[in-house]
C-alpha cells in the first residue's frame, strides 16, 4: 500500500501537497486503535486540511466530515497545502502521544523542516524511482500530475480530460471540476486545491 508515493509534479506544485497517514501496526498496537485514529483526524481538522479520509467510508467530499471521523479504522489520511500546518499537526501529535505510526508524504527537505520544527526525527523513508516499463502507455505528464494524487488509480485519465473540457467550455470552474474528481479517491489523499490549479493550467494551455 504505497498510495501516497509516486505523486508527480514540479517542485513548485508539490510544495503545496502534503499527505499525512496514521495507522496502527496490526498485531502489535492495534487494540482499540479506532479512537486514536479519530483523535488524529480531530487534530488535523484544527489545521485546515484540504481533505481527510477513512478507507472504510470515503473522504470529506463524499461524506460529512464527522462521518469520516467516526468511520476511522485501519488507516486514516489528511492532506494539507501549507508546510506550517503540517508542522503544527506534528507538534500536536507529539503531545497527544497516540502511539500510532505517522507518515508524511511530500518533498523530502520540506517534510524534514516540519519534523525539525516539531522536534521529531524522520525514521524511515520510501523513495520513488519513477515509472519503468512500457511508459508509452501512460497519459501525458499533466494528466498524471492529477491522477497520481489517487495512488489507487480510482481517478481515470478520461475523467480528468472531461473536466478540462468542461472548464474550457465554461460549464465548471476549476474548483468545481476538482470536487468532481475528489470523491473518487476513497482514501481521501487527493488534493483538490492543487488539482484545481493543475486543471486550470491545462485548460488555459489548450485554449
Amino acid at each position, binding site marked *: *500500500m*504505497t498510495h501516497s*508515493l*509516486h505523486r508527480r509534479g514540479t517542485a513548485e506544485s508539490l510544495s503545496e*501537497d502534503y499527505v499525512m497517514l496514521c*495507522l496502527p*501496526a*496490526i498485531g*502489535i*498496537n492495534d487494540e482499540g486503535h479506532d479512537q486514536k485514529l479519530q483523535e488524529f483526524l480531530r487534530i488535523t481538522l484544527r489545521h485546515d486540511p484540504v481533505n481527510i479520509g477513512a*478507507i*472504510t467510508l470515503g473522504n470529506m467530499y463524499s461524506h460529512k466530515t464527522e462521518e469520516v471521523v467516526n468511520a476511522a479504522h*485501519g*488507516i486514516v489520511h489528511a492532506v494539507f497545502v501549507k508546510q506550517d500546518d503540517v508542522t503544527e499537526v506534528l507538534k500536536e*501529535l507529539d503531545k497527544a502521544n497516540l*502511539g*500510532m*505510526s*505517522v*507518515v*508524511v*508524504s511530500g*518533498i*523530502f*527537505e520540506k517534510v524534514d523542516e516540519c*519534523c525539525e520544527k516539531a522536534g*521529531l*526525527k*524522520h*525514521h*524511515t*523513508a*520510501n*523513495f*520513488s*524511482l*519513477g*515509472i*519503468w*516499463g*512500457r*511508459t508509452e*502507455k*501512460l*497519459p501525458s505528464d499533466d494528466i*498524471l500530475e492529477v*491522477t*497520481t494524487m489517487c*495512488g489507487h*488509480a*480510482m481517478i*481515470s*485519465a*478520461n*475523467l480528468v*480530460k*472531461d473536466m478540462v473540457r468542461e472548464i474550457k467550455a465554461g460549464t465548471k470552474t476549476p474548483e468545481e471540476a476538482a470536487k468532481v474528481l475528489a*470523491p*473518487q479517491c*476513497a482514501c481521501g489523499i487527493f488534493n483538490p486545491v492543487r488539482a484545481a490549479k493543475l486543471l486550470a493550467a491545462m485548460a488555459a494551455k489548450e485554449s
Partner: protein
Amino acid sequence: MRIDPEVCIACEACIPYCPMEAISIKDDVAVIDQDECVDCAVCLKSGVCPVDCIIFEPAPWPRSLRTTFSDPRTEHKETRIAGRGTEEMKTNDVTGRFKRGWVGLGCEFGRPGVGTRFRDVDKVAQVLAKHGVIFEAKNPVTILMEDTKTGKLKEEVLNEKVLSAIIECMFPIEKFKEVISALREVAKEIDTVMSVECINRADPDGSYPLRKMLDEMGIPYYINGKQNVGLGRPLAEV
C-alpha cells in the same frame, strides 16, 4: 462488473469514470469488456449512473482477485489490509521490519492507471527470486506464489487483470546494485508499466545510506516521497 441492458439508457455518463476504458456503447446500450474490466467498481461507486443499471456480483476464484487487488475498499482476508500491499515502512517504527543495512523494494505493476496481468508480475518475481530477495510474507502477491524460492505465481492467476499489484521484498543493501540492474533488464520485457520504490531506515545521524547509493549510481528518484516520523509506540529496536 456488468450493465443491465434492459435498464441502461446509453447516456454515456459512466464511460469516462472507468480507469481501464472498458466501457463502450454497443447497440444503444453501454457494455463492459469483461476481459479488460478489473472489477474495481469505480463506475458503480461513483454513483454517476442515473438509472442504477451498473451491477457488481462477486466473482469466483481466480477472477475474484480482480476486486481484491483493484478496489482499495476491499480487505484482503490474508493480510487484513485493504488494497494491494502491506504496512511496509508505514509502521516500521513499531514493527522494525526494515532494519539498518537493509533495503525494501516495491514494484507496483500497472500503476499509474495502466493495469496489469499477473503474468508480468510473475516474470519479474522470478527474476528477483534468482537474486535471493526475501519476499514479504504478508503481501498478497507473495501469497499467490507457488514457491517463494522461485517467485513463480500459480498458473491459474496469470491471465487475471488488475488495476495494480505490488511485489514487496527486501535484501541487504550490498545487493542493491545487482538487484536494480536485474530489474532494469526485466522491465524491458513487461507489457505494462511499474512504479518502483525503495525503503531505507535512517542512520542515527538522520542520513539515508540508500540515498547516497542512488546518487553515486546516478539512479534518479523523485524529490518527494514518504517518511515515517517515528511517533509509533512501542518503538522497535532497529
